[in-house]
């Protein structure tokens, strides 16, 4: 690749048209003949629920996937992007949700990588740094080019990604859920920068599911639902309710049934007292979080992705050491207990990443059914020999009770569908005497029926007096399932609400720090 000129050439931005884009993954249609256009220099929001096809559409535009049908047109000319390199060459840049940066490289090195400025065979470090500094100033994205990326905040890393695209002369900038892990002040800086960029003619396309962002920051909005375009209009002529109904499909209600049962919680099961957890880089993930979960209630942890929910739950189940503060179960301090001891004391854990944390994929279904329970007297004798008969009987009983389809003795759990794998995990974790169930993203990647099954299983646990602590990024799920809701922001629990007090708007504002509780 040739090095790019060190000055920003003002070029006209072509209009982007997506015409009849269809993408199928196997039999699953992710996008069905979506047609859209983005005028030069405009700011466009693409919104929809999880799985609506927003990211897929953006990936198709950036050449990361090739549509099965339809065209991308730039300035009226059809394009063939067989890889991101082609899209970049046509002036498209994309900042993905997961940054593609090299932590041990400096900002300037990351930005010029692959299109370096050179003097002979030498890397022109000074030249790169001064170019990046100029670019940063012009575009209003302040950054020190000589600092290592590892030392930067998420927001600064995002600025590096944007500069990377601008350095490659991107005139069309795609941002995939850009504010998902930003603090409110950082988000407003980002939006200010996008406004400046659009004034100079750069087209901005951002994916989001936050309506306030759409109303405040977009010129045009497009709504996708289940792979189809359901709404497209200038924001100035649109009311938020129109967008919301286009997202959920005409229904005004939520698509997860809320059960308004009034609960009478029992005694304290889990108590966190000023719990602090450091992450692997030594920076703080959870800051002095205090929370109580009582018998017979479900507490939901709401928050923007990366606000410390994962670390909090991992500290409860013992996968992560707490650095300060106390975790107690039924009044006993368990902060120093092993995972095994916590399990034996009645903590069940249903992780987000089934394949990494809940299942041994090459093990058979019945072997997975006793993972972590193999030492129980039901499943093994004192001599250390497994009781295969008891294991198989237990397995047969549980898969019937939890309706795990396709699970058979000797069949690797790998061959089950995601929903059935999750049911198997629930069947294992919930079928014993418990004090607390800790759950992360209980329905991620599951279809509606499987998700409803999971929700009912968790409610059943609550009704038999177990304390349930779960985390979800989906506010509808939080509102539908929780009896009480704890909101996390930058590692702190900033609010604890009852379900009656909470609604999606309030939670959204608390999660993003728009209002303090």
């Amino acid at each position, binding site marked *: 690749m040739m090095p790019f000129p060190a000055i920003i050439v003002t070029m006209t931005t072509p209009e982007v048209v997506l015409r009849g884009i269809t993408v199928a993954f196997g039999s699953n249609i992710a996008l069905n003949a979506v047609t859209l256009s983005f005028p030069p220099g405009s700011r466009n929001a693409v919104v929809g629920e999880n799985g609506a096809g927003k990211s897929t559409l953006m990936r198709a535009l950036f050449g990361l996937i090739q549509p099965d049908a339809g065209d991308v047109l730039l300035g009226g000319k059809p394009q063939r992007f067989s890889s991101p390199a082609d899209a970049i060459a046509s002036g498209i840049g994309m900042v993905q949700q997961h940054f593609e940066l090299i932590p041990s490289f400096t900002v300037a090195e990351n930005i010029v990588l692959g299109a370096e400025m050179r003097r002979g065979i030498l890397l022109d470090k000074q030249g790169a740094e001064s170019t990046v500094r100029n670019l940063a100033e012009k575009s209003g994205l302040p950054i020190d080019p000589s600092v290592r990326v590892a030392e930067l905040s998420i927001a600064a890393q995002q600025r590096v990604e944007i500069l990377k695209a601008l350095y490659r002369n991107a005139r069309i900038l795609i941002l995939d859920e850009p504010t998902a892990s930003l603090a409110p002040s950082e988000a407003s800086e980002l939006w200010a920068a996008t406004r400046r960029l659009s004034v100079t003619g750069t087209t901005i396309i951002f994916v989001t599911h936050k309506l306030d962002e759409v109303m405040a920051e977009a010129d045009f909005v497009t709504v996708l639902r289940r792979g189809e375009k359901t709404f497209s209009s200038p924001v100035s002529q649109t009311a938020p309710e129109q967008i919301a109904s286009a997202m959920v499909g005409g229904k005004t209600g939520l698509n997860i049934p809320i059960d308004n049962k009034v609960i009478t919680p029992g005694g304290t099961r889990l108590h966190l007292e000023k719990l602090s957890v450091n992450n692997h880089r030594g920076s703080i993930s959870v800051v002095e979080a205090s929370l109580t979960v009582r018998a017979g209630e479900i507490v939901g942890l709401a928050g923007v992705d990366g606000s410390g929910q994962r670390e909090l739950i991992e500290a409860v189940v013992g996968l992560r050491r707490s650095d300060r503060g106390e975790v107690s179960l039924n009044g006993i301090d368990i902060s120093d207990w092993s*995972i095994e001891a916590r399990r034996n004391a009645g903590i069940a854990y249903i992780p987000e990443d089934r394949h*990494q944390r809940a299942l041994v994929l090459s093990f058979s279904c019945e072997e997975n059914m006793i993972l972590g329970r193999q030492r129980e007297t039901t499943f093994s004798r004192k001599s250390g020999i497994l009781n295969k008969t008891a294991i198989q009987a237990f397995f047969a009983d549980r898969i019937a009770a939890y309706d795990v389809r396709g699970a058979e003795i000797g069949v690797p759990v790998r061959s089950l569908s995601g929903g059935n794998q999750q049911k198997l995990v629930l069947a294992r974790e919930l079928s014993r005497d418990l004090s607390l169930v800790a759950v992360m993203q209980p329905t991620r990647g599951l279809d509606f029926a499987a998700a409803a099954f999971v929700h009912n299983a968790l409610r059943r646990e609550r009704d038999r007096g177990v304390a349930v602590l779960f985390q979800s990024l989906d506010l509808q799920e939080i509102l539908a399932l929780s009896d009480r809701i704890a909101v996390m922001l930058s590692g702190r629990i900033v609010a604890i609400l009852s379900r009656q007090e909470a609604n999606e708007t309030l939670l959204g504002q608390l999660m993003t720090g728009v209002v303090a509780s």
Partner: protein
Amino acid sequence: MTGAVLKTARRSCLSLVIAFLLGGALIASLQHDIKAPFAAYNALFTGAFGSSSSWANTLRQTMPLLLTGMAVAVALSAGLFNIGAEGQMAVGGLAAAVAGYGLKDVLPGYCLLPFSCMVGALAGAVWATPPVLLRVTRGVHEVITAILFNYIAQNLTRYLAAYPLKDPAGQAPQTPEVGATLPRLWAAYDVHAGLPLALILVCLFAWALRYTVWGYETRAVGQGKGAAEAAGIAVRRVQVTAMLLSGAIAGLAGAVLILGEVPFRRFPADFYGVGYGFDGLAVALLASGSAWGVIPAALLFGGMNAGAEAMAFSVGTPKQIVQVIQGILIVAISATAGLTPIRRNFRSDSVDADGRENHKADVRID
């Protein structure tokens, strides 16, 4: 289940064919004779399975390979690669020789024999300890440390057998003769009681891996470390146990070799390098980490080792060709392994004692 076994067997056979083809090409090119590989392989096969005495020779070679192959397989089932089997075997052999000589006037023969074996196994386990402890505490990869321990074992056993522990009665640098030896199975052939012992241990291992809590937890750690950890299985303890057991079996292999009638009965200074430890790696890999697979794989390698001598003698092809074939075999099997147990054992979890990074590396591979 059977499907998976068949697939593994097919892959192992394919790899064997590749290895022998490449080995044949090498023989042909180095001996400048297109017919040389056929003559060599013919001699190799006849030397391995052609007569009852060649069978006896093959079985004699198979015995230690059953043990070293199993030693490596035990570690592999917990996700560790015990490349130090050769060193553990040498240390175990020396320890058994010392016990077998030093206590021959104290213990009666029927006690001395099992006792010497146990001392050998214990020494092997001790020698395997530092590498695995360094792995789980300091994150130094066990392959590098175990290799260094091999060289230290080589020099140390050579020194000990040649100087402080040397038989003062003889000229040769070796320890004095042990007081009790493993009995022969047939008077005419030097196949001794080590063979049934090794077979029993392999069966026991295969059974334990499937039917005990120990085996269950070991396999869970080897095949899904993250899930095993979240399920409360003490991953480090399981790995340390597996490595110690692996070292003990390798040490036992050394002990059984020394205590067998022929060729040793004494620990010679140049014992290290006898090669069964390294062959054990290839045996375990050929078995694809399956315990039962160790038996045919050991027999095959035993046959190759036995036949190699005959081949060198009758057609003059150097016996090192067998080593070449084994090296190609390891590569061929691992290259064709796909995401099978072996491959998973080798997925590069970064060895920093850092859960998050480990997690990340694992995600990339699956």
